[in-house]
């Protein structure tokens, strides 16, 4: 254990903690742009500077270990001036389009510019221009807005273990990109989007779908069995974004399905009315010998994709829409008939690992108690 003093307050932290860890423990706000608690320290943005009594130059608190007896100051006119200058430099070639930027309101850089009152920029320099070549359907990269904090590079390498992007070039031309400046071709987990402090990385499907004033609802991801906690961002009865909070079981990490796979909720293919069959089953016979046209997938430069409706049935061709009452009466009558003629064990129920536990409970109770059979199962076996 190490004990040190920060802004006059004593604090004890574990060995190998950084000064920043100690500062955070005391809940003292100091700005950071490149630090992430789960990632290796980087020390790139220089905003987390602190003064240590006895050493002449300020140091980056995120890369300096706390030592016994240190006396640290986190704010002083000199530090604030240094921070402001650093920010001015970062902002000098930053596009000034906050009003239409996806990240506005949730942007660390914007927040700091506001805090330090940066309006005019004394360094007004040359603007970087990068060609946009994002063919991928998930992640929009606006590299003019990149501040080179490297969080995306580190998260992709250290957490995701993929390493799809890295720093390239040097000096003013430094940028972050996939090898050979190709388009992103990765697992599209979107972890990089989640940690990006500015509008450089955003979700493509978020575009103009709203930034704030969402109703947020915490729930659980509907895909695999990990049970990741997700937050749905709702606008007018529509899920417009999915995110995940850091203090969750999944530490805020998601996969492509969880983060970007919510479009099915509002798919035009959703069933909206009870349907009763009108044509005999042979008409909608399912083609058994099928072919799979080898469309060039997106990753090979092709457009790819099959329109969803091209592979769903057209319900109305062999079904008619009915009211719920009609559907319930019809089902009840048919099931009662079958039960009478063949006994309850001629009826079976398949429940769903996609539905809630409560629904599963009711479903098995319906079969065991109402129909009177133990023929009830679900797809645990596939």
């Amino acid at each position, binding site marked *: 254990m190490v004990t040190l003093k920060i802004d006059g307050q004593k604090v004890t932290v574990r060995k190998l903690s950084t000064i920043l860890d100690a500062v955070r423990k005391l809940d003292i706000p100091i700005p950071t742009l490149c630090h992430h608690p789960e990632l290796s320290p980087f020390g790139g943005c220089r905003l987390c500077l602190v003064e240590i009594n006895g050493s002449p130059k300020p140091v980056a608190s995120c890369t300096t270990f706390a030592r016994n007896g240190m006396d640290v100051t986190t704010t002083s006119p000199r530090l604030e001036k240094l921070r402001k200058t650093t920010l001015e430099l970062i902002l000098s070639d930053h596009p000034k389009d906050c009003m239409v930027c996806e990240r506005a309101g949730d942007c660390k850089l914007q927040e700091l510019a506001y805090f330090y009152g940066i309006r005019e920029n004394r360094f007004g320099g040359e603007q970087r221009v990068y060609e946009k070549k994002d063919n991928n359907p*998930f992640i929009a990269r606006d590299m003019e807005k990149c501040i080179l904090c490297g969080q995306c590079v580190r998260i992709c390498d250290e957490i995701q*273990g993929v390493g799809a992007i890295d720093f390239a070039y040097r000096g003013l031309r430094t940028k972050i990109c996939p090898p050979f400046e190709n388009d992103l071709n990765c*697992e599209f987990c979107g972890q990089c989007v989640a940690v990006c402090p500015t509008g450089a990385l955003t979700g493509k499907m978020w575009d103009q779908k709203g930034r704030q004033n969402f*109703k947020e*609802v915490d729930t*659980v991801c*509907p895909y*695999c069995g990990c*049970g990741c906690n997700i937050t749905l961002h709702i606008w007018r009865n529509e*899920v417009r974004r999915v995110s995940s909070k850091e203090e969750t*079981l999944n530490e805020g*990490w998601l*996969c492509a399905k969880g983060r970007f796979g919510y479009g099915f909720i509002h*798919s035009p293919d*959703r*069933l909206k009315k009870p*349907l*009763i069959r009108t044509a005999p089953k042979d008409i909608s016979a*399912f083609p*058994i010998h*099928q*072919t799979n046209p080898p*469309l060039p*997938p997106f990753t090979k430069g092709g457009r790819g*994709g*099959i329109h969803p409706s091209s592979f769903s*049935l057209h*319900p109305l061709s062999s*079904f008619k829409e009915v009211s719920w009452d009609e*559907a*319930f009466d019809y089902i009840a009558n048919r099931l009662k008939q*079958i039960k009478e003629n*063949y006994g309850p*064990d*001629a*009826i*079976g*129920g398949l*429940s*769903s*690992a996609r539905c*809630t*536990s409560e*629904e*599963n*409970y*009711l479903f*098995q109770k319906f079969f*065991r*108690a109402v129909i*009177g*059979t*133990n*023929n*009830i*199962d679900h*797809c*645990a*076996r*596939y």
Partner: protein
Amino acid sequence: MFGSGAMTNSIPEIENHDIIFVIGSNTTETHPIIGLKMKKAVRRGAELIVADPRKIDLVRFSSVWLQQRPGTDVALLNSIMHVIVKEDLIDKKFIMERTEGFASFKESLLAYTPEEGERITGVSREDIIKAAFLYGNAVRPGIYYTMGITQHTHGTENVYAIANLALMTGNLGRESTGVNPLRGQNNVQGATDMGCIPDFYLGYQKVTMPGIRQKFEKAWGIHLSDTPGLTATEMTRAALEGKIKALYIMGENPVLSDPDMNHTIQALKKLDFLVVQDIFPTETAELADVILPAACFAEKDGTFTNTARMVQRVRKAVEPPGDAKEDSLIIVELAKRFGVDMTYDIIEDVFREAGNLWPALAGINYRRIAKNGLQWPCPTHDHPGTPYLFKGAFPRGKATFTAVQFRPSDELPDHEYPFLLSTGRHLFHYHTGSMTRRVDPINRVSPCAYIEIHPEDAQTLNVREGDAVRVSSRRGTIEIMVLVSGRPAKGVVFIPFHYREAAANVLTNTALDPISKIPELKACAVRIERVETSPK
């Protein structure tokens, strides 16, 4: 065996393992976030043993990769255990105090020398020994498996072998130490817990056990059947035989997910009456007499139980489209038509009713899981939940060793069908694709089905990446695009089963594991031919 099918540890415990043994689970693609925790453990110094016929992504992070031939897991595990016994890496105290049947079980391992293991599995004896030492010497090891273990005609034996391995080394009932089957669907754990399995009521209370039925009869106020029910795969068979006349399918798509699609379709067509309740017009719904529109996860309140037994809150965020209704309301309404009142005021009442009938849930209510979930067993309102199982004791007292012998898969490659086909999921799509294939961006990255073929096999077949091939088994034929890949071994091919236009399950075998009734989806024999004119 020692208990029910659930993870014995919790997800946060993963990062503290010192050895992780992944067998038959492509974790980073099927359970990406659990995959992240494994990678985190490796970063913190854990060593990873991967046993998989394919060079899955986790292999990059592993200390040893055991590329066993599909269907030879028992031989692989037995030979690892042979080495553990021989090197005396067993936990004698644990074996004595908490297990029974070790002596005769030990005998059964004698034949499985590393050499014999190598002969059957194709994994080198050095790697078998290395894996045995890694696992045998571990302090906090975890075993992870999924359908790669269970979807075999000898799936139950595979699971027994894994249990034996953990028991003989005493690697159960401690933090970050245990056996963890990863469940594939968001709420497959919940559906099983809630008794949507033919032989058990909720909470794994056996239908045929004396007193249990009476307990439920009393609680539900209705007479219950004492005939054990059929499993899903048995129901399909019974439908073909005309014994099952009506099926009610809620939120499943067996046409694509079950083995031998022709067989499934025939069975469903033979029914007098089929109800399908779903959010999309699935391939199964095409065969229905009535289709009912259901609400999806974002349109209802309730709970999901994740693969680590954690009960978590699902919340309604939007209204369902059109006249679609929550599944629970549909069931209640239908029950009314039968003169049975299943109505509830709020959905939590249903959860409470379940908690009254299964003590493991009794301590959980919606208020307690408002922010973070709780892991069952959680018997009382001040119980903190159970992150890991079997601390100090097994529910049945002592755990038993079950000796298992290697048995080949039901269908092996032969002259006519020379390739071994394995099926599974990949990262971007989910299960039968009824959801993900309707998410435009996902469909753009992963638009069409493919068959993974080893480069040498591709050469022999004279096919290149992007070519179309015709793949046939004894049950059917599909045409599909070739992906030349070093992931499968020579002679083994892989097809993801998400795609209806080239459905892997046209090919698969319906042979079942005699105990679990799980079909052998992970191994069947196929023939591959080049298609001369590429299909339109």
